[in-house]
């Protein structure tokens, strides 16, 4: 039997469509139409709500939700747990908001998504009736939840960079970048690498490159959200990294490092200085295989003249504009950011609190000795560029900073390409 010739393309297309449908999955959301929901609706609504967050790995959320539910039998919170992949969490929230899903009342948003979601009109502005008190919170964390002068998300947990150093080789930690570079001779003498951060081409590079630029006094975006990379300060910042890599002060494998690889290198004693997040502290001091157990020092990351400007990590809590029970949602949001809850994040999950007072709390410091240093880091921190075009901005930074550090492109060209790319992203299409 012969299949008619004209059916061939149809059949081919069918097979193709089957193979392709796997790729198309993410785009099914449809054309994003802005406008969002009604921010004035449901403000007094009370009743059961849903809280959405990524995987609760260290069992922090469940006890808190249970505690809330015991006290509020008529306004119970259901905890919806997402995967532990940030990208998937992001896409999940986007899909639900696009569908105007009233079932996502309170969502946990990564600091870098806040502006995007706010600009889409999905987040309830936290003002007037919905206002929260942010006076006790560290300012950079509040900035990370603010878009165009309005607070859209309440800071929940934070994160800042620390400089880990070998206190057996370096008696006093460097305060400035130049000082740190001058100490690299010590590393050479001991035949180990000097400095590493995360310079592989991924989100971590955005964190490290913006840190370098901010620490040198520059900035990626100005106050109006426009790129401001054609400045001597920004140039000095990126040049610090490029020069360190060219000199070998950043070992050549440094451009393949993500958090874990850089931690392993430091922990096995192959690095003098490491820029990383606080999670390294516990592992490096307790893991059996750690070669730096008793030789570990921590300090704020170095800047041009003093402590550098860390990039800010962490999560914020936001109320959906589509929620029908915003009064309950607001109460829950206040409960989740209360001092008691913040303390619980720190003790149970080693998550950095957003309340300044907790960083000197005796019990907490006894458990997490790095807290005082981390406070300096977060106080000096600059949120990663707050822009609704963050996905494009981070790609522009990664692409060009990577070329500049590897020496494939002069720092000037890299910065002007970065500038133009970000301008183009903001211009819409």
């Amino acid at each position, binding site marked *: 039997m012969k299949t008619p010739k004209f059916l061939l393309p149809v059949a081919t297309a069918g*097979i193709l469509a089957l193979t392709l449908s796997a790729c198309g999955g993410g785009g099914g959301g449809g054309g994003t139409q802005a406008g969002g929901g009604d921010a004035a609706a449901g403000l007094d609504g009370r009743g059961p709500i849903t809280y959405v967050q990524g995987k609760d790995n260290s069992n922090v959320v469940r006890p808190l939700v249970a505690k809330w539910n015991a006290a509020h039998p008529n306004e119970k919170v259901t905890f919806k747990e997402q995967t532990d992949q940030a990208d998937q969490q992001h896409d999940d929230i986007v899909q639900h908001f696009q569908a105007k899903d009233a079932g996502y009342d309170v969502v946990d948003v990564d600091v870098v998504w806040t502006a995007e979601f706010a600009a889409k009109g999905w987040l309830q502005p936290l003002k007037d009736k919905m206002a929260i008190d942010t006076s006790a919170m560290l300012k950079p964390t509040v900035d990370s939840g603010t878009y165009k002068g309005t607070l859209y998300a309440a800071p929940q947990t934070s994160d800042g960079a620390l400089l880990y150093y070998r206190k057996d080789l370096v008696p006093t930690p460097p305060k400035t970048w130049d000082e740190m570079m001058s100490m690299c001779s010590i590393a050479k003498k001991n035949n180990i690498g000097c400095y590493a951060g995360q310079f592989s081409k991924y989100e971590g590079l955005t964190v490290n490159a913006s840190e370098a630029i901010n620490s040198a006094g520059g900035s990626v975006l100005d106050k109006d959200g426009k790129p401001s990379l054609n400045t001597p300060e920004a140039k000095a910042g990126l040049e610090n990294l490029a020069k360190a890599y060219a000199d070998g002060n950043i070992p050549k494998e440094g451009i393949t490092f993500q958090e874990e690889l850089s931690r392993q*290198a430091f922990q096995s004693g192959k690095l003098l200085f490491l820029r990383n997040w606080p999670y390294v502290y516990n592992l490096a001091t307790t893991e059996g295989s750690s070669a730096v157990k008793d030789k570990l020092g921590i300090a704020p990351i170095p800047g041009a003249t003093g402590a550098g400007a860390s990039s800010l990590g962490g999560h914020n809590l936001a109320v959906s504009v589509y929620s029908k029970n915003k009064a309950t949602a607001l109460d829950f949001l206040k409960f989740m950011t209360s001092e008691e809850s913040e303390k619980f994040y720190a003790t149970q999950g080693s998550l950095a609190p957003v309340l300044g007072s907790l960083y000197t709390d005796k019990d907490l410091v006894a458990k997490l000795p790095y807290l005082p240093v981390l406070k300096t880091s977060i106080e000096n921190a600059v949120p990663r560029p707050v822009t609704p075009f963050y996905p494009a901005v981070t790609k522009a930074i990664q692409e060009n900073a990577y070329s500049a550090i590897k020496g494939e492109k002069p720092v000037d060209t890299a910065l002007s390409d970065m500038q133009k*790319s970000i301008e*183009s992203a903001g211009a819409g299409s």
Partner: protein
Amino acid sequence: MATEVGPTPVKAPASGGTPIHHGPKGVGEDNQILSQGKWASWLLAPTIIALGIVIVYPIISAIVMSFQKDAGLDPATGLFTAGGPAGVQNYVNWIAQQCAAPAGGTVACPPGTLGAQFWSATATTFFFTVVTVAFETVLGFWMAMIMARTFKGRSLVRAAVLVPWAIPTAVTAKLWFFIFAFEGIANQLFNTTILWTGSEWPAKWAVIIADVWKTTPFMALLILAGLQMIPAEVYEAAKVDGASAWQRFRMITLPLVKPALMVAILFRTLDALRMFDLPYILTGGANNTTTLSILVINQIRQGFNSAAALSTITFIIIFLVAFIFVRFLGANVVEQSGATGKGKK
């Protein structure tokens, strides 16, 4: 996949051996065929409707989206506003590598935008496809020839060969990520200090090696299915006629295995053209290992409509390749039963 491929060698000769029902049509048979056709269309309807919902609808909606502008930002409120109709602008932007200019209109995409990567991603995709499929075909053929022989523990070997194919690609990619780390096994083993994921050619080869490792078994099994359809008598006759091993391979094995081989190559080519997870996890698309699929996924986060245009372009490219295969190279997916029947006549 293991369960799907496994039975093929057994099934294929059986279907090839069934007598062919379709003799020349008589006049009386026409009515019968007509009513059969109606009956068949009823039976097929649920499948066609299901396919329509899950395949045709998303594709059409993607194509519709691709003619819309992405949302822009209203500078006064800071909120996104709908983009409106774009015509073919999204397509033009990708192909001509044009990006929005701050002053309005378009400029050549500056390095660092996704738009600037379109042609390099296309080239990378084709490079990966050609190289990996070539390696996989040769190695797969070799493995299939070995597996086709009768020896002790043959089924064990066949099962073992499938292991790389059975591991999810994301896991494979993470595995190779650690193998190719600077302090990883690859460098330790060969006593080298190559930055596998840190420079262009090593990164490309890292992707190729991992892909070949993973998908050669798939090739091998498809080819093995083809090899087992060749009757042993043909070889015996050739031997009696004094044909050398090389002649037997070139004159008997190759032509007879060609239908199965072409289908295998077609499948692998289509698969390789939409390669995503391996380079995405192994290198993050750095050092010129960004494929078209990675570009699509990255673009989805920056604007759906433009991403829809790009995925439509990708679709067309893959469609053309598939068409060339089917039309000119005789990869016969549709008429396979007919072709094997012909061979039997």
